[in-house]
């Protein structure tokens, strides 16, 4: 088996297994913990609404915090949306998803995907520079932050390389691209990238608890 077949076949399969098992394990490890009953008299019983509310609302920072967080938020928005556009808008990706799930949708022109991919790389690089240069972020960062960054940017860079037919024979670069995706999938449940799931749980938890108190979120 050549590298590409290996990457697309068993390695990708294993990566998916690790991704699913890891995600379930981590979520279960958190969600199955004890939840103490709350006997206090609620101010509001609309806790589900509070949860949904905060999940949506915290996507945009509060007006009072907009200025201080503008730079970091802009970077974050660019690379998150960029990732989504590239993963779900690029025609070869859609074909791949179709081969797995049968689902498909119209893709974007490749030119647009390349521009978005380049912007995503730029934003991720800016995020890294900020992490290293901002004293607060440098202090609170750990290995997970840097590794997760690398694992996130890798498929974007290798994807662009493959598309540009740059850096080596196409099948090899494509194989590396697929391997970088496998690494991302396999790492996601174990480090901070899990925030893709946890963000809903954490915001929902606070939204519900605060709604119960009538406190503001």
């Amino acid at each position: 088996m050549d590298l590409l077949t290996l990457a697309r076949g068993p390695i990708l399969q294993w990566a998916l297994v690790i991704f699913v098992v890891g995600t379930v394990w981590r979520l279960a490890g958190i969600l199955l913990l004890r939840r103490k009953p709350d006997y206090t008299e609620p101010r509001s019983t609309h806790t589900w609404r509070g949860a949904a509310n905060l999940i949506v609302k915290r996507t945009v920072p509060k007006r009072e915090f907009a200025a201080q967080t503008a730079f970091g938020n802009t970077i974050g928005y660019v690379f998150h949306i960029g990732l989504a556009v590239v993963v779900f808008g690029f025609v070869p990706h859609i074909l791949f998803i179709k081969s797995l799930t049968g689902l498909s949708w119209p893709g974007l022109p490749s030119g647009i995907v390349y521009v978005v991919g380049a912007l995503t790389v730029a934003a991720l690089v800016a995020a890294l520079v900020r992490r290293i240069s901002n004293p607060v972020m440098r202090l609170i960062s750990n290995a997970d932050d840097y590794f997760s960054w690398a694992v996130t940017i890798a498929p974007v860079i290798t994807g662009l390389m493959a598309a540009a037919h740059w850096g080596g024979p196409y099948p090899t670069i494509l194989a590396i691209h697929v391997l970088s995706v496998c690494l991302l999938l396999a790492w996601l449940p174990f480090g901070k990238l899990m925030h893709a799931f946890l963000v809903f749980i954490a915001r929902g938890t606070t939204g519900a608890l605060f709604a119960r108190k009538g406190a503001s979120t």
Partner: protein
Amino acid sequence: MSATVVNDPVGGVARGVPRPDLRQDMQGEMPAQERVDIAMRHFVRDFGAVAATYMESCVHCGMCAEACHFYVQTGDPKYTPIWKIEPFKQAYKREAGPFALFMRALGLKRKVTIEELQEWQELIYDSCTMCGRCTLICPMGIDIAALVSLARHGMHKAGLVPHELWAAAERGEREGSPLGATPKVLKERIEWIADEDDVDIHLDKEHADVLVTMSSIEIQKYPQAMAAVAKVLNHLGMSWTIRSDGYEATNFGLLSGNADWQRDMSMKMIKAAIACKAKLLLLPECGHAYTAMRWQGANVYGQPLPFKVRHISEFLGEHITDGSLRLKKGLNKTVTFHDPCQVARRGGVFEAPRVVLAALGAEVHEMKDNRSMNWCCGGGGGVISIHRADAIRYKAFEIKMRQVEDTGAEMLVTSCSNCRLSFDDSQAHFHWDKTAHSLLEAVADNLDDTPPARSVAPAAIVNPYREAPAP
């Protein structure tokens, strides 16, 4: 990071803030390792799904720093809210998280050392008022203030609490008041102020509909509050009492992190309320008292409380709204209101004090950041009791001072005696000309004793218990 650099762990020199004295407090005798183990065990012990969710979700984006008065005023990264619980986060991942086994086996997370815990004493106590402002900025929605509260449980068990705070809590547990307002002192103070103000204050009635509780700060420093609450309740014609077996509402067990003491302190009031068959336990102008009893009291008790719990400002707002409390518009000046963090942002009471101020005829000039976005006075969460924290507390207060000044209001009002204490202390420090006045006392000074006109109920005001969260 070793013990020799405890004073300046990240090499950042806070702008304009003198370093705290090199001083770390310890209670009790035990080997260093045992302290660490106990701290972590008790920290992890009350870990439920909520705390675990928060511990797992941080993306290290650093935004929370921008919400915290201690960071904003110093620029020192160690005051980043989530950093304040870093050793506990490490310990959680190593000892309790879903991958704890791997973390330990692969040595991915080091064991926390006693030096680190000692170093973090300043971060967990001196520079966090548990005001919860950071909770509102976190893109993940992590309630960092709740985690600091949990970290304090571990620190207390390990005997690593700033000494003044520990001593106040211990005294509260032993004598019934952190400030020496023992039942005997309470009686003397009540007799004196009742005489001074010529008001009936009911003490130790066997049965009453309302159990009135106090803050020791009021008993000792603002005794006028006792007369004020008496005047209001007498004006309303209510059956009420203060009871010497359950009057102290400031919960230093909660502030210092001792869950057992917190329970003892809350249970005294709960038992007193049950004993006198109260329908309402009225909390004083005190923020953390509200958190402790309104939002944790029933859970300490282990079942729903057989009475309601209200903060005095809610109570006043409610009775103005239903027309039973009639006030003279005696406060006809411009007023700005300082929202106590625990009552407003974390407690859900936003509009009631504004209803009260409007009824008093005041023209409210809101601060730029008000209601849920208010800035803390800097002295909550027990910080005001820690001498070592004075410098940073004053620094944090500068934000508040600026915001109050910017309103141009003639008068400053709040509904927390601990905030008032903090304002008084900072006012003296800065030779400032503004004093924080009590909402309750303003009401008591303006009771309308003329017989009610026919239509009293103002129709347009919403029920402050059911109000929507502030925008």
